[in-house]
C-alpha cells in the first residue's frame, strides 16, 4: 500500500512540474541515455531523438512517462528523480527543436536555388522523397538544427557526422576501391550504399582493407560557396521545418 500511495504522489508531482533544462542536463543525458540514443541524441540502438518525432507520444507528459517508466521490452527506466526526468524531457525536446525561434540572415529562396543547382546538395540529401540517400534527409533540419550547427556542417562537414553516415572506403583485393556509407557489417561481409546511391555487398575474403579515416563524404562548402551563398543555403535549410 505504501508503494501505491507513493506512485499516486508521483503522478501528482509529475503533473505539477514542467520541463526545465539546465547546464547539468548534458551529463545526465550522457550517463543515462547516450549509450543507446547516441552522445548527441542521434540514435543507434535507441531512437534518433533529434527528429522531433516521438513514437510513444510527444507531449511533455508523454515524454516524462516514457523516460520515467521505460518501454517494456525495448527501453529501460532510469533510476533518477522526477526533477531529473523533467530536465531530460526539456533536454530531449531541445534536441529536436534547436532551430525553432532562430532567424537566419540569408535569402532562403536564393539558398534553395544553390541547393538544387550549384551546390548539387540533392545528389546526396533528400527533402522528403526527392533527392539522394547517401546523406541524411533534410526535410525538417531547420527545426532540429541550430543555425550555428547548419553553418558548421557546410564549412566543416567532418565536425559531426551521424555515425550511420560515416564514410567507409572498401579496398578490394583486385585493386578496386568503393566508397560509401556502411549499412551493415559482420565478420563475413559488409554492405554499403556507395556514393552513386547503389547498394553494394562484399565478402571479406575479397577485401584488402576497410578504411574509416575520412569520416565525411560531404564536400567542404566553404571552399565552394561565398559567404553570402553560405548564408543563403543556411537560410533555406532553416526554412525546412517538416510537416509539423
Amino acid at each position: 500500500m505504501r508503494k501505491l500511495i507513493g506512485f499516486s504522489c508521483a503522478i501528482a508531482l509529475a503533473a505539477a512540474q514542467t520541463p526545465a533544462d539546465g547546464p547539468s542536463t548534458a551529463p545526465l543525458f550522457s550517463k543515462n541515455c547516450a549509450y543507446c540514443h547516441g552522445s548527441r541524441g542521434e540514435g543507434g540502438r535507441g531512437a534518433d531523438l533529434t527528429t522531433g518525432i516521438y513514437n510513444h507520444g510527444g507531449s511533455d507528459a508523454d515524454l516524462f512517462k516514457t523516460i520515467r517508466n521505460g518501454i517494456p521490452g525495448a527501453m529501460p527506466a532510469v533510476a533518477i528523480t522526477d526533477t531529473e526526468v523533467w530536465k531530460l524531457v526539456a533536454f530531449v525536446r531541445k534536441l529536436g527543436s534547436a532551430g525553432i525561434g532562430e532567424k537566419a540572415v540569408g535569402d532562403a529562396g536564393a539558398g534553395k536555388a544553390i541547393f538544387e543547382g550549384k551546390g548539387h546538395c540533392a545528389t546526396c540529401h533528400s527533402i522528403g522523397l526527392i533527392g539522394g540517400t547517401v546523406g541524411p534527409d533534410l526535410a525538417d533540419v531547420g527545426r532540429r538544427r541550430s543555425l550555428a550547427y547548419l553553418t558548421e556542417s557546410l564549412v566543416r562537414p567532418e565536425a559531426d557526422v551521424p555515425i550511420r553516415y560515416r564514410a567507409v572506403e572498401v579496398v578490394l583485393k583486385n585493386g578496386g576501391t568503393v566508397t560509401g556509407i556502411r549499412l551493415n557489417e559482420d565478420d563475413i561481409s559488409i554492405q554499403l550504399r556507395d556514393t552513386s546511391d547503389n547498394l553494394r555487398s562484399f565478402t571479406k575474403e575479397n577485401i584488402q582493407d576497410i578504411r574509416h579515416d575520412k569520416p565525411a563524404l560531404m564536400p567542404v562548402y566553404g571552399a565552394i560557396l561565398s559567404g553570402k551563398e553560405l548564408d543563403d543555403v543556411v537560410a533555406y535549410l532553416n526554412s525546412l521545418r517538416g510537416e509539423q
Partner: protein
Amino acid sequence: MKNRRACVLAITASVLLHAQGLPVTNDRLLHADKEPGNWLMYSGTYNSWRFSSLDQINQGNVKNLHVKWLFQGRHNEKFETTPLVVDGIMYLTRPENDIYALDAETGRVVWVYSYRNPERTYNCCGRVNRGLAILGKTLYMNTLDMHLVAVDAKSGRELWKTGIHDYAADDGYAATGAPLIVKDKVIVGMAGGEHPVSGFLDAYDARTGKLAWRFHTIPQPGEANFGTWAGDSWKTGGVTTWNTGSYDPDTNTVFWGTSNPWPDYNRDERGPGDNLYSCSVVALDADTGKLKWHFQFTPSDTHDWDSTQVPVLIDAELRGRPRKLMAWANRNGFFYLLDRLNGEFQFAKPFVRQTWNKGFDDKGRPDIIPGNDPTPEGNDKIQPGVDGGANWMPNSYSPITRLMYVFARDERRMFTKNTIRHGNDDDTVPGPGAVRAPGNTNGMFGNGGNLPGGGGGRGRPARFAPEESWGKVIAVDPLTGTIRWEYRVLTPPWGGVTSTAGNLVFGGTQEGVIFALDARTGERLWYFAGNDRVYASPMTYLANGKQYMSLAVGDVIATFGLD
C-alpha cells in the same frame, strides 16, 4: 584417419555403456568427462573446461556442418542459457524462468515448466537465466525473484521451491546463474551488485531445499578482514556471486568468483580499504561453506570489474612440480594463474589493452596507475572498458592442445563516477526491476553489432568508434600466459566458447556469426550467419549416436550436425 575412427567408435561405445538416462548420480557428475554424449552441468565438468572429447565433428569435416533443428524461444530477452543433455533429452531455461525439455535429436518439445516472476524484479541487466543443474531425477533453477526451484526431470512438475532471500530488500536481489551440484547440495549464487545489497553464496539440501550453509562474501563483524570497509559501508557493499563456480573433489573445495563492491564506480563511502572479498575468488569447504582462502584480483574496485568469471581448474607441472592450478581470464584485463590449494599467485599477464596497472607484487597485488578512476564528467582513458576484458562468458580449456580459449573484449568506453543512493531514496523512482533489456530491438542494424549502440550493459555513455573496440578469441598457454593465436571479430562479444577433441573451438558473435576455429591455429574453418546476437556459449552432445552442437542465437537454439 584410422585412429580417429577407432576413437569415435570407442566414444560411441562408451556413451552406450553409460546410456542410463536418469538418475544423474553424484558419481556421474564427478566423471562427466566420461559421458561426452551428455552435458551434465553448466560448464560440462567440475573443472569447468567446457571441453568435449567428441570428435565426429572435426576439422576435416566441419565445413559440412549444417542446421539440423531450431528451437524457437519466441521471447524478447537475451538468451544466455547453456542447455543440459541427458541421454537424448535436452533441458534448457528460456527467459525468464521457464524450463523446456526437448528431444535432443529433433528439438521437439517434450514438456514445459513455467515459473511466474513478479512483474517487477531487480535484475540489473536483463531478465535472463543461464541454465540448470541436475541431480538424480531433479532439475534445479534459480529465479529472478530469488527462489531455488526443484523440478522433476521426467514430467516437468515442480517438486519444491525455496526462498533464497527477499528479492525486494535493499533495493533488489536477483538470481540468474546456473546452480552447481556438489554432493547432496545445490550451490546457488545471487545478483544485485548494482544496488546496496549484501552478497552471499548459499548451499541447499538437494532433496529438501533446506539451507545447509551460507557464506557471506563481505566479512561480518568479528570475522577476519571485516575492517576492509569504511564505516557501515560493509552493510551495503554488494559483492554478489551471480555466475557459476567450479568444484575440486580431491580437496572438496568449491571455487566461486565474486562481483564488484557497491557503489560500482564510487569508493567515497567504502574508503581506501580493499573491500574484501569483492572482485575475488573464494575457496570454500563444500560441506560447511567455511572459507579456506581468497584471492582478490582488483582491490577496492571502481570499474565494475566483477570477478564472476568461471574458474578453470587445471592440473599440470609448473616449474618442475605437479601442481593443482586455477586459470582465470579476469574482467580487469589480466590472465591469472593461481595455486588452487592455497590461492598463491603465480603470475598475471594482460590479454587486452589495459591502462590501470603497472605490474604485480609477489602476492599478486596490482600496482595501480593514478588517473584511472571514473570521474563525474566521464573518464574515457581507461582500458579495459566497463564490461571488461572478459565478463561472465565461459572460457574453454582443451587437454589436447593444452590451451585455454578466451573470447575477450578489447574495447574503449567511458567510466562515469556515480552518485551514491541508499535504498529507495526517492520512492517514486522505479527500481531497476523496471529495467528490461532491449532484447531484440537492436537498433538500425538489427544485429546489435559493433555499430551504433551495439552490445550489452545499460545507462553507459555511447561507446567509441567501432574501430577502437573489437572482440577476439585468444588461445592462451595457461602455464605461461603466452597468447598463441588470436582470432579477431568485429564486436566485443557476449558469448563464450567451447572446444572439442575434433580440434575445434566453437563460438558466436554479436552479429550472429557462429563459427568453428581450428583449435591449434585459430583459422576459421566454418561459419553460419545466424544474424542475431549471441549471448550464450556452445555445447555439444550425442543423440542417437550422432554429434550435435547447440548454441543460442537471438531467441533461437540453433543445433547443427553433419548429416
